């Protein structure tokens, strides 16, 4: 039997008993809606967590322990030897030493060429950390230079991507000034600064130099609170301002894979280092909670799909028994047992398609409602996610597919029953 007539006959059979069809459709609808809603919530919440904590998932930030008892391999100092041993740890792809700049840098004028409102008395101290070029190179635009320019050159800096969101979302509205353009348009901006000048009392260095910072790009590998500059520049400034030499104040370990991160962190701890996991642990905690909640809710959704399959099985089973004579008539006019089986399965597939489509619509509406509730419940902030849900096309396909699958699974036994019915006995 061809698909067209089969589906047409199946649709008319369903229309003949609209109450039963509506209940079965509702069961499929609820299953698909629950599945799509919960999976979309898991995906959306994970995306939101990634936007909140966008750090590279493979990076482990380590610092010398506050209370250093010494690891089994020696004291917890981030010297050259320790960096080499960290690089040799299993699962570590690269080690990037970081050096906090101990020379204060203050900006008292706006970036050149950028029309922003800068209050006359405003001075901003810019925390900075020195990093190797290799750490931020993947995020920089082609041709961007990230190397020590020497005493007279503009110092290249890289900022966190989120800084722009925070500025546009909070600072610009507070200052009633225009928001900044997208990140690529800002690359190359220069900011006049005073090296050695601090906004804090007694923290200004004995001498202050005029200098310039030039924005080389944005990266998720740079913390929100600081500007990253070449580590050679930090060492040069430390020498120029008489600060003590040190190889690194912290280090970023790049794991070969995200799965290696826990083992790498544990090995670093055994060496006597502390893992600075402020952002990472927050992201991991949020990610774990989202994953756990998503898995639990996904399980609930699958249970609902299984219940939908049971509902369809019970309903279609009853329908097949009630329609035994009709099915026998089909056999009398030329239908094979396989045709009758296919008809019942086609009815189930239609229920699944309609129920699944409705369910996906219900999930979208429920998600929109939840987002509106979230918007009312959380204060306006650039970090507030616009949505907690993500509906990628594959999820729509999966939602529909699972609804159809649940209906088909539920219809297996009724379809087999329909094929087994003795037409002569049913017609008698």
């Amino acid at each position: 039997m061809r698909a067209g007539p089969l589906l047409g006959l199946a649709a008319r059979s369903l229309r003949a008993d609209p109450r039963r069809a509506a209940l079965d459709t509702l069961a499929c609808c609820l299953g698909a809606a629950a599945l799509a809603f919960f999976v979309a919530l898991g995906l959306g919440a994970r995306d939101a967590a990634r936007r909140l904590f966008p750090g590279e998932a493979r990076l482990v930030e380590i610092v010398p322990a506050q209370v250093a008892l010494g690891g089994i391999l020696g004291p917890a100092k981030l010297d050259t030897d320790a960096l080499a041993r960290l690089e040799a740890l299993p699962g570590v792809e690269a080690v990037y030493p970081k050096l906090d700049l101990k020379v204060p840098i203050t900006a008292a004028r706006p970036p050149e060429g950028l029309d922003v409102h800068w209050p006359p008395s405003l001075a901003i101290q810019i925390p900075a950390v020195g990093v190797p070029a290799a750490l931020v190179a993947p995020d920089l635009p082609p041709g961007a230079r990230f190397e020590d320019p020497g005493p007279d050159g503009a110092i290249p800096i890289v900022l966190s991507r989120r800084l722009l969101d925070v500025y546009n979302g909070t600072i610009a509205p507070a200052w009633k000034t225009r928001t900044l353009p997208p990140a690529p348009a800002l690359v190359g901006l220069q900011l006049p600064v005073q090296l050695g000048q601090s906004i804090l009392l007694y923290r200004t260095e004995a001498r202050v130099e005029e200098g310039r910072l030039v924005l080389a790009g944005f990266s998720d590998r740079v913390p929100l609170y600081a500007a990253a500059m070449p580590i050679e520049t930090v060492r040069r400034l430390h020498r120029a301002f008489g600060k003590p030499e040190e190889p690194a104040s912290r280090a970023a370990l790049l794991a070969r894979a995200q799965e290696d991160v826990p083992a790498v962190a544990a090995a670093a701890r055994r060496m006597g280092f502390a893992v600075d996991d402020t952002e990472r642990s927050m992201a991991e905690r949020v990610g774990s909670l989202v994953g756990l909640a998503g898995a639990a809710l996904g399980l609930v959704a699958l249970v609902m799909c299984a219940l939908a399959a049971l509902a369809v099985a019970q309903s279609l089973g009853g329908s097949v028994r009630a329609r035994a004579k009709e099915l026998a008539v089909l056999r009398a006019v030329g239908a094979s047992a396989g045709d009758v089986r296919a008809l019942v399965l086609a009815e189930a597939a239609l229920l699944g398609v309609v129920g699944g489509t409705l369910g996906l619509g219900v999930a979208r509406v429920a998600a929109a409602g939840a987002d509106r509730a979230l918007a009312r419940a959380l204060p306006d902030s650039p970090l507030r996610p616009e949505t907690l849900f993500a509906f990628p096309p594959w999820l729509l396909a999966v939602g529909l597919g699972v609804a159809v699958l649940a209906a088909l699974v539920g219809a297996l036994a009724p379809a087999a029953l329909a094929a087994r019915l003795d037409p002569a006995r049913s017609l008698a």
Partner: protein
Amino acid sequence: MISLRSLRKSFRDAGEELRILDGVDLEVAAGELVAVVGASGSGKSTLLYVTGGLDAAYEGEATVAGRSWRALPERERARHRGATVGFVFQSFNLLPMLTALENVCLPADFRDPAPPPAERRARGLDALERVGLGAKRAKRPEQLSGGERQRVAIARALFAEPRVLLADEPTGNLDAASGAAVIEAFGALARQGLAVLVVTHEERVSQVASRVLRLEHGRLHG
């Protein structure tokens, strides 16, 4: 066209074996209308379903249009039935969710290859016109009288241009006038070359039947 040889079939009822067909032999040629009469429960319907290949649990040989049901796999049996046999039932057995025309065209859904939609509709309308119900093609069964329903059922049986027509008490639910019209229709179909086998209580069938046989104790008597 119809050939039944040494047909035997029995049922188990409360542990006891009831032989409902006990060596039935019957030949029905094209253009012949054979009526089988008999008491209720004598096995007339069973004989019809075995003849039409709907009941496969029997002993002996049942052949329609030169092909033995037993020799055919289930799917082939269904296709052969759809192509060569038309059924008419006492209770019409129209599908309630379909219109008269859709009921008539139903066999087309199971033809292989299926006729194109336009041809399917044209043939269905033609079959309905032949039974005088072209104007009621859009009516559903519950909107038709008993006689009209039976005529729709006959049109459905004729849709596939079968070579054999099997009718199970076709006038059982009809008033006298409608029953007479149906009987007359069967006579006309036989004259057009169909092999018609009717099981019935209706004495008037004998007026148009080539032969009237009585089924008694599992055997046919002339």
